[in-house]
């Protein structure tokens, strides 16, 4: 009898555990994103976010918390602390930056959204320190409704600390999306928190339409070879074959030379592989804005001159505001990439986020 009761108890606990943290979930309400999902139940919304291969459930409610499993968050969020400039870009896309009260910035890079830079200057938005070691006292003092964080292997301590201090937070896994449209779709995540669904839909469908249009323009034409890299003291970093960049190359109908490197994110490859695969690359992108001229590039390593695109001058860098405005205008970035790969299809078009290295 006791054993039976124990069995039932174990079964119930297991079942409850499953409800609390569904390990399997297939996003339905989103088209391209793979790491979040939203269900609208009228009086409340269920927001699911994938992080560390697990799905976390958040219950977004307006007046009264419904009796549903998940972390409750009262919406619309009025006082938000964000961790990264990518969050900034997405809130900007849906016109919801007014709710930002704190930003883990640390003053270490320039903010290209002028109004935000101004607010940071005059203290309307408080700089709460760097994303790796934020000033928790300031965050507490701001009394935020919610802190949006991204969690990498380097800043896990922030998540733990917020938990310990009982500051409500939500994990944003937008940076893990490997489709530019998937990334752009994350505006819907912020829209769910701020009740700006309409703006998000408008923004996203525009981006989607533009990207698909670009793809149509370049479809069927000859695919130029593209190499995208960053080099530093003999060590070369390239995006992997399932990365965001590789996907962008696909939309732009370019043949990305490291597309066979499995996985997402970037990889460190040998210089000889870069030269070998890059020696006949038609277009090259150096993914840093600290290089302005071809001579700067050759100063980093003189052997880069062997890359065909460097010889022919079709070598570009990303613009200074790529990581901020570029994320807001994903469609323009894709169009830019298509334009530098297929200049004949985009006559008189000047790329906005890729800058040709000066001779």
């Amino acid at each position, binding site marked *: 009898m006791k054993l039976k009761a124990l069995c039932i108890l174990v079964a119930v606990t297991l079942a409850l555990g499953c409800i609390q943290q569904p390990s399997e979930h297939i996003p339905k309400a989103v088209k391209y994103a793979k790491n979040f999902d939203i269900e609208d139940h009228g009086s409340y919304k269920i927001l699911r976010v994938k992080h560390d291969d697990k799905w976390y459930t958040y219950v977004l409610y307006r007046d009264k918390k419904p009796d549903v499993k998940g972390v409750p968050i009262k919406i619309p969020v009025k006082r938000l602390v964000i961790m990264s400039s990518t969050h900034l870009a997405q809130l900007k896309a849906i016109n919801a930056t007014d709710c930002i009260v704190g930003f883990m910035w640390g003053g*270490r*890079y320039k903010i290209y959204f002028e109004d935000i830079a101004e607010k940071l200057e005059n203290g309307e938005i408080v700089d709460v320190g760097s994303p790796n070691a934020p000033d928790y006292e300031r965050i507490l003092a701001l009394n935020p409704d919610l802190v949006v964080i991204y969690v990498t292997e380097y800043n896990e301590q922030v998540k733990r600390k917020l938990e310990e201090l009982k500051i409500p937070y939500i994990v944003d896994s937008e940076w893990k999306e490997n489709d530019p449209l998937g990334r752009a779709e994350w505006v819907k995540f912020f829209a769910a928190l701020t009740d700006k669904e309409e703006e998000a839909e408008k923004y996203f469908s525009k981006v989607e339409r533009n990207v698909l249009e670009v793809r149509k323009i370049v479809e069927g034409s000859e695919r130029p070879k593209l190499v995208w890299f960053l080099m*530093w*003291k*003999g*060590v*070369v*970093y390239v995006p992997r074959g399932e990365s965001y960049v590789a996907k962008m190359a696909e939309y732009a109908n370019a043949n990305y030379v*490291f597309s066979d*490197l499995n996985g997402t994110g970037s*990889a*460190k*490859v*040998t*210089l*000889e*592989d870069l*030269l*070998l695969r890059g*020696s006949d690359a038609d277009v090259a992108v150096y993914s*840093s*804005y*600290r*290089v302005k001229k071809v001579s*700067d590039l050759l*100063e*980093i*390593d*003189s*052997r880069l001159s*062997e890359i065909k695109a460097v010889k022919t001058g079709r070598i570009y860098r990303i613009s200074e505001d790529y990581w901020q405005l570029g994320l807001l205008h994903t469609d323009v970035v894709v169009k830019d990439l298509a334009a530098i790969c297929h200049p004949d299809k985009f006559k008189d078009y000047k790329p906005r986020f890729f800058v040709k290295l000066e001779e």
Partner: protein
Amino acid sequence: MKRVVLFLVLFAFSILSVLAGIMIGSVSVSLKDLINALNGSEDIKSYIILNVRLPRTVAAYLGGASLALSGLLLQTYFRNPLAGPYVLGISSAASFGVALYILSGIGIGYYGLVGSAMAGSLAAIVLVLIIASRVKSAVTLLIIGLMLSYIFGALERILITFAESEAVHQFVLWTFGSFSGVTYEDLPIISSVTLLVFSFAIFLAKPLNALLMGEDYAKSMGVNVKLTRIVIVLLSSISAAVITAFAGIIAFIGLATPHITRLIFRTSDHRVLIPSVIVCGALITVLCDIFSRTIVAPIELPISVATSLIGAPIVISLILKRKRIS
């Protein structure tokens, strides 16, 4: 006699390893390709052989040899098996120099990096030399060297705190050592400095043997302890500084190779150890360099991963083996 044979065998292997370093890689290279390349053929294969593989392999050879020698000198002088080329603060000073260069936004060019690392190391060398000429014992110098490392490390962290994140990223990448950045043009500097250090080091064999018994004993044997100290510090620091400037921080070689060499040759006579440690350091480093760039090609592992993963088991197995025999 047996040791001479052993030395010659290892030397032959080290030369073979260089050949292997040039032949092995993402593109397979035949002897014919190599000859083509040497005859001035202009395809990408030849370019890779001459301008990518040759410089990095030769640099790994000389770099490994220098770090190992530097480690041996300092281990004997400090009579401390844990001493290595970086105990006197050379690496932290070099990375402080680089941090100053990158993080303050002066530039990002390769020679700027080499120069700033070199400048940082030289500053540390001057400091250490001034201290070395004043202090009485090796232990004091060791402690002061460690303190210098902490100071440079702290200064570097101050810079990191205030720098732009992209610059910090680039700086962190610098700290993972690699011989990949070495070009053809760098080889004359690297080889002339290292060969000079090697030839001076030969003259240190006798005083080093005396120092094995401690500074007081060496003094009684007629060794000029102060001069020896300064020469040891100078030679070991300069070789570490040059390699760090060109290749970044390479872990383990300087610490482990002297142990490996002592265990293989079963002697603590520096007339044997000095040339042997040079050859062993070179051989191990070239093998680690090949390993790090081919094992998961096209992805390259940091060389310190290979040096530690290959080196540590060798040291452990040699130590256990020796225990069993005795």
